[in-house]
């Protein structure tokens, strides 16, 4: 019952969060939208940083550092304007290569 209630409340709340600004779009000034744009980018950047800092791999000493190196490699590729898939592959392969070198497994 706990799961059902939590899913219903978060699902309904999330739907309202996504839909209400667009339904009342005619009343929202562009200035607010511009600030929201920056908030969105900031949140995505924070998600990346948290994923790196909080990365865990019990078999890998210094796992956040390995995640940082791999993510940085992928982001450099993305920054240069290459395809997203290439950026993701670069990050993933960098991680796999470092892990394999340090532990002998992925």
């Amino acid at each position, binding site marked *: *019952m706990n799961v059902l209630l939590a899913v219903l409340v978060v699902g309904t709340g999330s739907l309202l969060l996504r839909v209400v600004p667009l339904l009342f779009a005619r009343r929202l000034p562009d200035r607010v*939208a511009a600030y929201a744009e920056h908030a969105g980018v900031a949140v995505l950047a924070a998600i990346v940083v948290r994923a790196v*800092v909080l990365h865990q791999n019990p078999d890998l000493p210094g796992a956040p550092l390995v995640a940082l190196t791999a993510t940085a490699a992928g982001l450099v590729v993305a920054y240069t304007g290459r395809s997203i898939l290439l950026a*993701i592959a670069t990050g993933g392969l960098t991680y796999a290569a470092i892990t394999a070198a340090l532990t002998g497994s992925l």
Partner: protein
Amino acid sequence: MSVQTPERVAASPGTRGAAQERRDGVRAMAPMLVALVPFAVVVGTAVAQSDHRLAAWLGTSTIYGGAAHLAVLDLTSAGAGWVAAAAVGLLINMRLAAFATSLVPEWRSAPVGLRLAAGVMLTDIPWALSRDRRGQRQFYLGAALTLFVAWPVMVTAGMLLGGWLAQLAVTAILPALSLGALVAPRVRARPVAFAVSASAVAALATAGLAPGVALVICAVAGVAAAAVGGGRAS
């Protein structure tokens, strides 16, 4: 030089056909789906381990955010009450309000049904993809609909196929890397660089906090830095 507002771009007769825009959106989303597979497997595994599988699975399309969905399932399986789990889930999904608000200038003139559809299917990756194609509503709809259909399928496959893929540590960084890859090219714009830098510092400082609270703090830091250092709009 005339200023092309998003609404003008959307209404411009010179823009490519709607169908082509939608196809472009689908194509843009395709590689992102590959990167999301491990995350979907992690969510699917959590759904499979839940005491109430059907309720947990329903969150796939209603919560429609892997991080919030996982947090809700983790907390309820750890014995937390539904109020606490819901509060955390909603805090994590607060960012969706910022995404939706930022879309307002491009969607203001759209019919209400289309705006509703845009909102229902809104989440991180379609939003980030659409930032490079402002005013191309059909591009957004193509990308968003692709993920909206594919995500429950991927999570369900994750439920059924088990979590062997999720056990590979490399898969933990792929969803975040895909989001970062969408933001990275935009850092050339000064306000975005300020927002990202401030948010990164805030994320380091708040790493020990719960994700919902931390993300709100990072959003505030990013907006403040962009306003102070880079001007109002990117």
